[in-house]
């Protein structure tokens, strides 16, 4: 098969000479998917932008060639390049909400591409627009053509973006983290769409992602990028069965899963080095546990280890590479030995008891602002969390899980229901006690720390507000202990948040919550903004803190792998209600509710042979206007007559396992 894109020695650098992309070579065959894998800041997106010559100001192409269908891209004039972009090679971006023009209808935006690259106009172009939207699986395409982006959901927007990209009938589609901003179920839909389109039109795909699961699902070939270089290149099968570079191995080891319960995740210490800081030696040396003196002295050469698999590591240079690899495999295997002792968990007396909690937001209309309806963000949720255990709350975005967490902290006033903490009612009670008892760790470590305050001031704030440790020496001592607990050096308390990396910031956020010695931490997606390797560090920390301080966690997440690793109990939430609850083992191993089953099957698995896909059509309905009967009925493949008539009562499977579904 012929190569559609051949990149060799690509170098992209800043004005000051720091190389963002350093000497990258790869090629993509016709009809194949090539995945570029790596953490943020490794130069994946810059590689894609370099290829389409869309680099931002201050970043420039400094060497190397890229041939698209035999045409040298860097030799083209800008005018010629414009016919390539959107024509031969199209690109889709991470944030579908930001890549569509909000003041143009979907049809107009697609028609623009059609006119430019296909010379289509008028009726023909209209016709083609509808066809394209139909092709990307947008229901009722003829109507959607005249709609504006704001009328579409996130998944729909990404489909429109794909339709726009397909409008020019590209030979190569560059997809830059196309599903990162989407929910698991939507991600599964979009990935499936990309695969279907590829098999239909025979185009090639350059897929940029940080998600090993997506690579396992989509890629034919994969390149692992680290600090601007490709450190390993292999076919999917080779990469999944025998990752060679220590970095790749660690990425796999850092993935949380049920198999690793009871042992710490293999977190990669530190973070990706800043651009251009390392000019000599292997860039991974500082974080590699197999590094020896040679690694920091000499830059490793590209070594082809097997047919189609190459690596940039000293371990595989020379003749004894084979022996070393054997040892490596043994080491990798170790990670898969799991002890499940932790799962034998017995519910103690509940620390937090929530019953029938409701949070409704009134919808007001008209001059007099009378209430015309209610958005039932949380609609009658009951749950309990025993001392020292973790309850995971799982669901798609918009299902009300964050609202529930904030309602517990009274950041949003609950409409009805009761919250009892160690037997005492909190709704309508003195708020002060509750502040010390429950704290929250937020999703985005970049938004959750005030950039104008030092770490010490941030940690001190809660203590000051709640009068803990009234004298300042005691407070400082407490801050030192907190920093030790979360694994930061003590002198970091005089620094400002911008001096820390994402993972370190999240540690500070955890320390801030711990400062008032809470018994329950509400963690709202604390790792979703972090890279895989850093996520492992934070999960390990949370687990360690739970053991040391006997903390309870309410862990709000959409990442089921994290749930498997950390949670004792799981509640699955759909449109403001809990549809299934049980121990982690019960819910994840034998899910009973069709929604849970669909969620679980939507997660891309690195073992490749995942369960059979359950396609989940459409999007989450609006909580202002929930469907009658079972809320999930319109999307459920097993829906029956009675599902649409009444909300199903709880069916009990075991003492802990309960499901709201008429099935079984």
């Amino acid at each position, binding site marked *: 098969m012929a190569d559609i894109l051949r990149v060799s020695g690509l170098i992209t650098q800043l004005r000051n000479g720091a190389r963002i992309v350093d000497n990258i070579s790869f090629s993509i065959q016709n009809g194949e998917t090539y995945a570029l894998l790596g953490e943020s800041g490794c130069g994946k997106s810059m590689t894609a932008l370099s290829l389409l010559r869309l680099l931002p100001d201050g970043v420039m192409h400094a060497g190397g060639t890229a041939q698209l269908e035999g045409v040298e891209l860097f030799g083209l004039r800008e005018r010629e390049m414009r016919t390539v972009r959107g024509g031969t090679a199209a690109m889709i971006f991470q944030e579908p909400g930001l890549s569509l023009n909000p003041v143009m209808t979907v049809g107009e935006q697609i028609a623009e591409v059609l006119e430019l690259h296909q010379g289509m106009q008028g009726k023909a172009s209209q016709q083609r627009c509808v066809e394209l939207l139909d092709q990307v699986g947008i229901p009722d395409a003829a109507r959607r053509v005249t709609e504006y982006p704001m009328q579409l959901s996130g998944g729909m927007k990404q489909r429109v973006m794909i339709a726009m990209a397909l409008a020019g009938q590209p030979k190569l589609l560059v997809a830059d983290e196309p599903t990162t901003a989407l929910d698991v179920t939507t991600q599964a839909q979009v990935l499936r769409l990309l695969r279907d389109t590829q098999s239909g039109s025979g185009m090639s795909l350059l897929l940029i992602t940080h998600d090993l699961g997506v690579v396992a699902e989509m890629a034919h070939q994969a390149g692992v990028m680290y600090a601007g270089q490709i450190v390993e290149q292999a076919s999917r099968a080779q990469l999944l069965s025998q990752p060679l570079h220590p970095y790749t191995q660690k990425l796999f080891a850092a993935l949380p899963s049920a198999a690793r319960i009871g042992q710490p995740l293999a977190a990669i210490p530190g973070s990706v080095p*800043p651009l251009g800081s390392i000019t000599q030696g292997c860039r991974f040396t500082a974080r590699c546990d197999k590094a020896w003196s040679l690694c920091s002295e000499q830059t490793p050469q590209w070594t082809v280890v097997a047919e189609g698999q190459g690596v940039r590591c000293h371990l595989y240079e020379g003749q004894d590479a084979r022996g070393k690899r054997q040892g490596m495999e043994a080491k990798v295997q170790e990670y898969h030995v799991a002890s499940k002792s932790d799962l034998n968990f017995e519910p103690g007396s509940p620390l937090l008891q929530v019953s029938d909690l409701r949070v409704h937001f009134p919808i007001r209309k008209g001059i007099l602002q009378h209430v015309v309806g209610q958005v039932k963000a949380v609609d009658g949720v009951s749950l309990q969390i025993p001392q020292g255990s973790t309850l995971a709350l799982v669901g798609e975005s918009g299902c009300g899980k964050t609202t529930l967490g904030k309602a517990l*902290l009274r950041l949003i006033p609950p409409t009805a229901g009761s919250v009892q903490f160690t037997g005492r009612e909190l709704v309508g009670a003195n*708020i*002060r006690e509750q502040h010390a008892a429950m704290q929250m760790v937020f999703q985005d470590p970049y938004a959750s*720390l005030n950039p104008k*305050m030092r770490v010490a001031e941030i940690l001190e704030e809660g203590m000051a507000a709640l009068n803990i440790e009234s004298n300042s020496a005691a407070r400082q001592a407490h801050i030192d202990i907190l920093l030790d607990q979360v694994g930061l050096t003590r002198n970091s308390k005089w620094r400002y948040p911008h001096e820390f990396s994402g993972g370190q910031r999240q540690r500070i956020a955890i320390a*801030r919550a711990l400062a008032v010695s809470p018994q329950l931490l509400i963690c709202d997606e604390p790792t979703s903004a972090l890279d895989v390797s850093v996520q492992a560090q934070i999960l390990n920390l949370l687990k360690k803190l739970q053991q040391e301080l006997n903390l309870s966690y309410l862990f709000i997440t959409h990442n089921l792998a994290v749930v498997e690793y950390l949670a004792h109990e799981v509640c699955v939430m759909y449109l403001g209600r809990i549809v299934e609850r049980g121990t982690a083992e019960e819910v994840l191993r034998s899910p009973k509710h069709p929604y849970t089953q669909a969620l679980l099957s939507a997660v891309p698995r690195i073992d490749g042979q995942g369960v059979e896909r359950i396609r989940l059509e459409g999007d989450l309905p609006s909580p202002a206007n929930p469907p009658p009967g079972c809320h999930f009925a319109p999307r459920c493949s097993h829906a029956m007559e009675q599902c649409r008539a009444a909300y199903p009562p709880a069916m009990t499977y075991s003492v802990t396992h309960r499901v709201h579904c008429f099935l079984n």
Partner: protein
Amino acid sequence: MSFMPVMLWSDALVFLLLAAGTASALYVRQREHLMLPWQRVAQSATAMVSLLVLSLFLLIGLLDTLHYRIALPEKNGGETVYSPEVLSVFDKLVTPLRTQTEKTYSAPLAVTLYAKESISDAHGNIAREYPRLRYGGAHLTDMQLQDSDVCWRWVTGMLAGMLVGLLITLGSKRWLAQRGWPLRPLLIATLIISALIGMTINLAVVYHVLGTDKVGQDVLYLSLKSIRTGLIIGTVTTLVTLPLALLLGIAAGYLRGWVDDVIQYIYTVLSSIPSVLLIAAAVLMMQVTIDTHPQWFDNSASRADLRLVFLCLILGVTSWTGLCRLLRGETLKLREMEYIQAAQSFGVSSLRILTRHIMPNVMHIVLISLVMDFSGLVLAEAVLSYVGVGVDPSMISFGTMINAARMEMGREPMVWWALASAFGFMLVLVLAANLFADAVRDAFDPRLNRTEAVA
């Protein structure tokens, strides 16, 4: 004592601002993350050159703010009597410019008056001639020598100025280089400015460089004195706008509900009233009050000064709405930030959240809008004084200069220099302020400096 220091109201406010400015500069110096945007400002050539120009204006303005009254030679029963005239240190420095007044109009660098007059000579013959000036070019015995004298003074003044400039640049070169400031543009600007100053001084000693006005006052002196008025209007007004806009803006944005409604109504109503009307009404009322209470003031300077302060006040009251609206919007965004919610979950009080979390995070907007507003206010003063509702007619300002020069534009031959120099000085001041404001905005705008935030 041969003089008595006088503290006018506007002086006190200027010193208050100066103290606040120095204090915040010291505060910023100790905090690296606050220094960062200022370091970006310092690296911009335009910003530093315009800052150099601005600081020259500021220096003149400050010297003109140190007021005093000199003791009169006569004593009243052993008690020293002070002159009713309030002078400033700047007046003292440029005494010849202030005191050497001609009879009426004379063109820049002229040795005679602008219009012919009937002069009777020793024999009683009356002739229509251009009379010689009392001071301008008085050292010349022959009027024919004027051109060569001007050229000679021009060149020597420029060379002397450049020499001084060269010494300054050589002295400060290493200091500048250490800080990584733009070396070449600053040095060139220093050379040009010192050459200009040298040449002006050398000429001003014996000529009226920018001519004289209707009553024979030196226009250069008037222009230099106008700087203080402009600066005061541009800066003291912020003392009024800032607390109003900051407090009301963030309170409206953070507290929402009825507080937000009330504040929004206030500023919507206020910004719907034509501000010139409001200012005119307030200033006229003030004028009446001043006129009916002459016993409040012991000299004319303090009366004119009170009107200036009052003008600042009323300008402040009419101009805080824009900044307030901006801050409300920013606070609406900030209050949803997770660090605010984290503080709320600790039960931190609203007042503390406003002062500790929200205020420091909107300061960049405050700073940008203050610097941008400055030039607008300087121009507003000129317009208001021209209309007649600005500063006191006895106070020297760009507005009063333009107002006085306006009638003379129509006469033949035209008297152009008063208007031209007011225009020129104001242009340089406002241009420098605008260029500096642009650089500050670029340095503080988070959207333009994203790369650093990510790294």
